[in-house]
């Protein structure tokens, strides 16, 4: 039991040790301002990764999150620019993202297509749709009567802490509750543990699977809103490659890609590790070529240490 608890804390301990090393190299790292920076920068990946955790726990994967983020951002920006009220913008955008996820989920669950392929396909199609929708150009979200309140979502502060950090915290609280305190959470683990047995135990596995991708779509579009709000502009290429960062966060947090085992709080630590890594490599002014190498090496090291002690 004690050993297991230690195992659970390993990503967190890793993050702390890593942070200490960095703050010795560069004391600025520990400034309040920088810590808030890291948290805000991490929030987008962390929110996507929360949805990805659901998907991966069921043994699936979602490569389409980056495209859904971009499409949602474009929808939000276009609506803001068209002068729609904030609440409508949020509702429509989040429904759009969720619907995209549900469609992907249906392809996987009813069409029996492997998640990797199904989401690869939706990644491509949704990216194409985003380019068609935006005509390949950014959409300015800095005009329209809701533009100020919209901008606050990504750029505002409450008590000196950035709004996206609150959003991230709320998302994780809800996700944690869902995974660990509700029936749906248990079903998610069961589905990933043994799909056939889950079906024989009377779970509607298809519905569950579909919903899980819906959640991922919802959170990807929430991230799209935050990102678009921060930039006051929706980029057609936004989110490209984000799926990989999200997957890395989930795995660094100790969730197995095979499904059925993992922890949501690990994921937020995983996202923070990646965020701290990006931030510190920038602070240390490491050239971008070497940044890639360093980032890869740190992730590998973390995963290897994690494996070793198991």
């Amino acid at each position, binding site marked *: 039991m004690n050993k297991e608890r230690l195992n659970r804390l390993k990503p967190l301990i890793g993050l702390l040790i890593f942070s200490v090393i960095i703050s010795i190299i560069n004391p600025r790292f520990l400034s309040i301002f920088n810590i808030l920076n890291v948290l805000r*920068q991490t929030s987008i990946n962390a929110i996507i990764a929360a949805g990805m955790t659901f998907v991966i726990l069921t043994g699936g994967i979602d490569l389409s999150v980056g495209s859904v983020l971009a499409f949602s951002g474009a929808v939000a920006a276009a609506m803001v620019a068209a002068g729609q009220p904030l609440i409508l913008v949020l509702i429509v955008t989040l429904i759009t993202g969720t619907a995209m996820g549900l469609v992907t989920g249906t392809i996987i669950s009813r069409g029996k297509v492997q998640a990797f392929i199904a989401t690869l396909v939706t990644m491509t199609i949704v990216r194409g749709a985003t380019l068609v929708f935006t*005509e390949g*150009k950014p959409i300015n979200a800095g005009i329209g009567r809701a533009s100020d309140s919209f901008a606050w979502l990504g750029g505002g502060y409450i008590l000196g802490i950035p709004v996206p950090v609150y959003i991230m915290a709320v998302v994780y609280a809800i996700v944690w509750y869902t995974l660990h305190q509700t029936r749906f959470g248990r079903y998610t683990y069961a589905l990933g543990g043994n799909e056939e047995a889950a079906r024989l135990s009377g779970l509607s596995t298809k519905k569950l699977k579909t919903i899980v991708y819906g959640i991922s779509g919802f959170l990807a579009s929430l991230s799209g809103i935050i990102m678009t709000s921060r930039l006051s502009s929706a*980029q057609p*290429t936004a989110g490209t490659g984000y799926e990989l960062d999200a997957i890395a966060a989930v795995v660094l947090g100790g969730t197995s890609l095979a499904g059925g085992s993992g922890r949501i709080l690990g994921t937020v630590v995983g996202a923070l590790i990646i965020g701290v890594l990006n*931030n510190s490599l920038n*602070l*240390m002014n490491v050239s971008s070529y070497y940044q890639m190498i360093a980032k890869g090496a740190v992730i590998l090291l973390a995963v290897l240490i994690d494996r070793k002690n198991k």
Partner: protein
Amino acid sequence: NNQAESDQVKVGLLLSTLDNPFFVEMKEGVEAAAIISGYTLIVLDSQNDPAKELGNMEDLITQGVDVILINPTDSDAVGNAIKMANRQSIPVITLDRGASEGKVATHIASDNVAGGYMAGEFIIELLGGTGKVVELEGIAGTSAARDRGKGFNDAISTSSIEVVARQVADFDRTKGLNVMENIIQAQSEIDAVFAHNDEMALGALKAIEGSGRDIIVVGFDANPDAVRSVSEGGMAATVAQKPYDIGYMGIEAAKKILNSEMLDAYIPVDLQLIKQ
């Protein structure tokens, strides 16, 4: 009907990518001019991949085009694609980026090195010849990033301005924002930022606004968002490249070729520093 089709001039346009507004505008320039001239236009997107570009060239040749306008993914890598068109005696015009090999009827572009130099000189002027700058670089390995970086660094090497941080932000606004935020943490003193394009410049501007510091931002491309920002006093300047004009002039040059008129080997498109 059939007659009309075979009469119509077919122009092929190969673009390095279409997910960047710069090239979308270039395409729109080509399209506008093609409609006026009554040309059929075939547009293919190389998605920043020279191998795909080569395949696209083959597919264009299969279509039997009369002239090819190409915006190369990379000046070196495009050589064999151009030679392929040369073998079929299809005239080739390069746009925005040149080709280091193969026979090209003309090259229409603004000079990226010169543009970088222009930005450098502007910053020297504003800072009075001394200060600390940050350079946000474009996608590693692209010629635009290389050339603008070269021009800029050549310019400031004549002054006592120092580059305190140089980071890649992939021509991307979000990355521009995040990277700049981090740099601001590391550097207590920054006077100016030069970004290899406006997307990154606009991202950096967001970061600077958030930090409450006073830093000059100079971008590249003069895209609509950036021009607006300059006019509102956000960005200090942007180097205008007029991609629409580049595209439009491409078709005009093609028309001359088809009429067997003479063309200069290089048709420069003015760069212009847009400032308040």
